[in-house]
């Protein structure tokens, strides 16, 4: 109760203070420092108007500088310092220590997995949901239901999915949906269809799409028009990454068929190394799909009707219209959605913290950092791992600033 009272007082002081600051600083500027009267009235008004923007901006700049800009540089400084050795400068020792830890590399590997799977899956599902719901009468209801997880906290979602993944002994009733479904498979034709053929089709489809993207990236180079050395290098790099993904997914297809599945045994899904990462990713995909859907749906509706009508007249089928006419036109929006989800993924902490806390090889960078900060109490390595996250964010940061500046001109 005291805290609630304190909260009310803070709102009053905070709001009153802000309004008071803005009001009185303007009054002081206009009445006392540069009064709009007397011999220098015109000059004074101009001077006052030059200063006024900074009055309006001052609280925001102060808060942003102190709470976001300064910490970036301070964290960089701290990552080169050893607190136990009296804040001595230790060069890259913290980074070296971090690199020598298997947990860090595990976190890096998992983060890369998250970075590929979550934005791709959330964008794909979002696009699918947007395209489908735009065509039916109860689409807006369907949309708000798919969008709903957006309001649920990561912690709440973790509890929800822990129930889904729950496992009981083989002789008991399963209370987790996933195990209840799993226990229905006993190795017959249905199991083969759903657990071998279906995943293989999904993986092959994924490989096909990635391969197509690699082809799109390389096509301009083959024609001899790359558009600058940097862009050519980026294209080759992107194509190499895509080729790697194709190889990985094809190898996974083979392992899907050769794997000996433990039918009839309830699985502790969150303790299966490697696969448990995907079960954690499902939580974030479930949350982010709604976001992707809302933005992509608006983009789809913004496509000029004429382009679609022209395609219909030319005899295009719905799939051709979708992939050849609509997707290219909303490509910029897809990039925005993708990068926004990428940012969320890089910061993902709550889900891993609540569901596995990085055990069973599910560590990610943000949780690794939290672990170093509060459990190992090693601020140097924690800062170093935070800088790794910053480094991963930087390309998106540069891209966003570049685009924002382009738009303003």
């Amino acid at each position, binding site marked *: 109760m005291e805290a609630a009272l304190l*909260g009310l007082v803070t709102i009053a002081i905070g709001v009153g203070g802000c309004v008071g600051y803005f009001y009185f600083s303007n009054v002081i500027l206009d009445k006392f420092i540069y009064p709009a009267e007397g011999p220098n009235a015109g000059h004074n008004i101009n001077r006052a108007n030059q200063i006024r923007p900074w009055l309006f901006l001052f609280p925001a700049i102060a808060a942003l500088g102190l709470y*976001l800009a300064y910490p970036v540089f301070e964290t960089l400084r701290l990552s080169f310092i050893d607190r136990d050795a009296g804040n001595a400068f230790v060069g890259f020792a913290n980074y070296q220590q971090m690199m020598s830890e298997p947990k860090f590399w595990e976190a890096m590997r998992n983060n890369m997995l998250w970075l590929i799977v979550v934005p791709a899956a959330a964008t794909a599902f979002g696009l699918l949901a947007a395209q489908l719901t735009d065509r039916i009468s109860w689409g807006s209801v*369907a949309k708000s239901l798919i969008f709903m997880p957006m309001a649920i906290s990561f912690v709440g979602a973790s509890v929800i999915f822990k129930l889904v993944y729950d496992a009981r002994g083989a002789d008991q009733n399963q*209370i987790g949906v996933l195990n*209840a479904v799993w226990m229905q498979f006993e190795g017959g034709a249905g199991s083969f269809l759903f657990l071998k053929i279906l995943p293989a089709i999904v993986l092959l489809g994924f490989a096909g799409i990635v391969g197509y993207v690699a082809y799109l990236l390389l096509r301009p180079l083959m024609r001899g028009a790359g558009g600058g050395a940097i862009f050519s290098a980026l294209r080759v790099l992107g194509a190499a990454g895509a080729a790697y993904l194709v190889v990985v997914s094809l190898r996974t297809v083979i392992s899907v068929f050769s794997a000996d599945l433990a039918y009839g045994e309830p699985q502790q899904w969150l303790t299966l190394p490697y696969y448990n990462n995907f079960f954690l990713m499902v939580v974030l995909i479930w949350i982010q799909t709604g976001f992707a859907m809302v933005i992509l749906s608006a983009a789809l509706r913004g496509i000029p009707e004429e382009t679609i009508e022209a395609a219909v007249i030319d005899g295009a089928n719905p799939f051709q219209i979708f992939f050849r006419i609509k997707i290219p036109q909303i490509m910029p929006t897809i990039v925005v959605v993708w990068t926004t989800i990428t940012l969320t993924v890089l910061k993902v902490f709550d889900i891993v913290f609540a569901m596995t806390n990085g055990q069973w090889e599910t560590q990610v960078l943000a949780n690794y950092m939290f672990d170093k900060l509060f459990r190992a109490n090693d601020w140097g390595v924690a800062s170093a791992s935070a800088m790794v996250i910053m480094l991963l964010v930087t390309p998106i940061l540069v891209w966003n600033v570049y685009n924002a500046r382009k738009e*303003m001109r």
Partner: protein
Amino acid sequence: MASNSGTKSGLTWAVNISVVVLVALWLFPTVGLFVSSFRTADQISASGWWGALFPAEQNLVLRTSDPDDTRVEENGRFVVSGRVFEEGMDVDISAWGVSSRAIDDYQPGDTADMGDGETLTLAPDGTYVWSGNDDQISGRGQRIFVTATTPPELTTDNYTTILFSGSGQDNLAKAFFNTLTVTIPATVIPILIAAFAAYALAWMEFPGRALLIAAIVALLVVPLQLALIPLLRFHEWIGIGKGYLGVWLAHTGFGLPLAIYLLRNYMVGLPRDIIENARVDGATDFQIFVKIILPLSFPALASFAIFQFLWTYNDLLVARVFLIDATGQTTVMTAQIVELLGTRGGNWEILATAAFVSIAVPLAVFFAMQKYLVRGLLAGSVK
């Protein structure tokens, strides 16, 4: 789209069914939690929540009434009779037994011979007659193992426990108020600061404006993780340590880039005429802002308010780092639920209810203000 109407209606059907499947998949996990929060611990561990809405076959362990109080002497034998189920419960017994090793030995209506003349008869409606000599019909009531189909039963007891009567970790009431104490100031204060800054960036001319906007776009993506250690040190240094003040300040700082970005984008789109007319009529910037810009910007303000509310209400990391100290008096709901996951991992009736209490408020806000949320998302994603 397609040339003949047959394939067209087929396609419409396919689309409708796909959307139903998609919505069901997305809704299923949440519904599971919701249904589980209305079931007792026994029900949850006996069957999956999807069975909660239908009569379910359960193995029950019941007991006859206490022989020392209720036995009646008849012809030298002692008899205890009654009904194993409460009044009004409509139960369909399929099998029963008197030993834990053979729980389905007898059919309803059968008489169990328990040796030395001791017998127990259980009728299909749940009434029993237990008879034997003085020695046998004494002590505690006889256990009866019943396999029965019981009607679905939902209860709000879990909510009473979590909100009012629970003790220690099981009571979420304090954490609920703590969360609101964090959330409301952390939503209100950044709006004001951001609104003034956004107005300056949208409608005032000054050198360095473009640079500032670029800086805000850059700060939009700076990960929170970078700020934790320096700010923890800073809060220690200025002496506020861990507490509400620290968490309010932190949320204000972290929410500002999005707030300024959203509001500036909206204010730039307001009609120039109105503002210039007001200037010509002699209004000061402060007056223009308060009397014209703020009322017109209401949709954008609402959008950001919802974002910031959801984000601060659902946050775990900032609260863990800047608020919750060793005493645990200031714990918030998300943090308490994570602790419950650790200590009461198997008690789904507690977990499900606690989680649902915590997500109820955001869900209500979501459904009430969805329009503004969508608008904000569309404006806020950097184009």
